[in-house]
């Protein structure tokens, strides 16, 4: 009996809070999974604070839907299994919306472009792409390419350039190390990230982009979105509305301009 009344009370309280009458106190806490090492999109500052574009988006969305956030750091290759195992509720980790991933999880609308670009040593002349910007498979033969495991880049390489000698890494930082060390001839990663964290720094001085930006929708999806477990349609609608609000209010652009001199989304995503 007592338990029943307690439960009823708790239920009344939680609904009252969830409705967010005042908007000040709120009981809904969403746990957000991200790598925490993928600068400038999600990373820890020297003070141990999480920062970056993904973190800003997460906070911006949470403010609009009125939820508290709890961040969970998770290695990339276990991101989707961890979401499915209920270790967190959302993935806001620069994850591209691809058909393959949509078989397992749901995505919000896009909030950032998803592209990839190949990097190599300046001193090495490589003729990797033709005039149309398409890769020339024969010229990739025998080249050692470093990629992060389970990324859009590795899927693209496996399908388009099976002749390349692909080496899989657990994180994005070792990629740059091994490119410098000469263990791999090429790496493929996010061009914005590569420019900011590597090419513009002293370590990256001897390196350059080889070929154009790749964004084939089949592999790179329509963009980067918020991942969630299937069946959470009310949440998905709220997230989508919040993202649109961020885009239309110009807030999303300010997140991008903290890091880059341009925005990272299309305005039409706000429609």
């Amino acid at each position, binding site marked *: 009996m007592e338990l029943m009344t307690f439960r009823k009370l708790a239920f009344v309280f939680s609904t009252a809070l969830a409705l967010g009458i005042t908007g000040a106190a709120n009981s809904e806490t969403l746990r957000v999974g991200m790598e925490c090492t993928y600068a400038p999109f999600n990373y820890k500052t020297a003070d141990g604070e999480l920062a970056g574009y993904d973190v800003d988006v997460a906070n911006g969305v949470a403010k609009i839907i009125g939820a508290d956030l709890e961040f969970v750091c998770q290695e990339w290759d276990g991101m989707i299994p961890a979401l499915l195992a209920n270790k967190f509720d959302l993935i806001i980790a620069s994850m591209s919306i691809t058909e393959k991933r949509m078989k397992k999880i749901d995505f919000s609308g896009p909030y950032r472009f998803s592209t990839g670009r190949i990097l190599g040593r300046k001193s090495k002349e490589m003729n990797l792409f033709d005039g149309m910007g398409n890769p020339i498979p024969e010229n990739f033969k025998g080249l050692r390419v470093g990629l992060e495991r389970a990324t859009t880049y590795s899927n693209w390489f496996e399908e388009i350039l099976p002749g390349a000698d692909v080496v899989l890494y*657990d994180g994005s930082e070792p990629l740059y*190390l091994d490119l410098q*060390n000469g263990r791999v001839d090429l790496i493929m990663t996010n061009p914005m990230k590569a420019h900011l964290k590597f090419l513009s720094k002293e370590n990256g001085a001897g390196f350059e982009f080889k070929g154009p930006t790749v964004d084939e929708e089949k592999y790179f999806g329509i963009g980067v979105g918020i991942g969630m477990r299937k069946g959470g349609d009310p949440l998905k609608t709220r997230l989508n509305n919040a993202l649109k609000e961020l885009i239309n209010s110009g807030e999303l652009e300010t997140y991008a301009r903290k890091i880059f001199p341009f925005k990272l989304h299309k305005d039409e995503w706000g429609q």
Partner: protein
Amino acid sequence: MSFDLHLIVESLPVMMMGLGITIKLLIISGVLGLVLAIFLLLMRISGKWYLNFPAQMYIYVFRGTPILVQIFIVYYGLPQFEVVRDSVFWPILREPTGCAILALSLNTGAYVSEILRGGVLGVSKGLLEAGSALGMSAYHKFVYITAPIATRLALPAYSNDVISLLKSTALASTITIADMTGIARTIVADTYAPYEIFISLAIVYLIFTFGIQKLFGLIERYLGRYTIREQPHE
């Protein structure tokens, strides 16, 4: 969550493609580690401080740090020095397999040398005195009395170390090597089914370990064939 048997059947053959690399890592680092261990052992029992002390330090450092850290130091740390990248060792250190074998050999060598020392210390003094009484030199005593008995004594503990080396080879997957664990991790990242894949991977390691246990059981029986016959007399 349901258990997808079909997925296991499908991915087991793919994982077995990494078996060759796992075996290669195990055998090469096992043999190199054993050679290193014998050198360290000889230094330890030489009775000369300038040989004993460096060996002791070496064993302390390599037993006192995690094997994963050692692998990372060899793989990511060494190439930071230009000297290393220009040296004749670079073709080996450039390859992740070379780095893994180096780190695993250095590590297992430290452990095995202590196991062997335990065997040497277990040889009873009486036998060595008998050897001296027969006029055998120190060299002859070591080769004909100490070594065979110490080997037999050290074998059970050594088989333990070989099994532990087998499991350490899984760490090679952290430096891009596609051994069984590396392949399993890639499959998991593709299928999002960690449970099925890692369970099947664990079973493969168990079968492998069983084989090593059996092999050492046979060697033990062979080396101990004289002691078995003597038992009724005691």
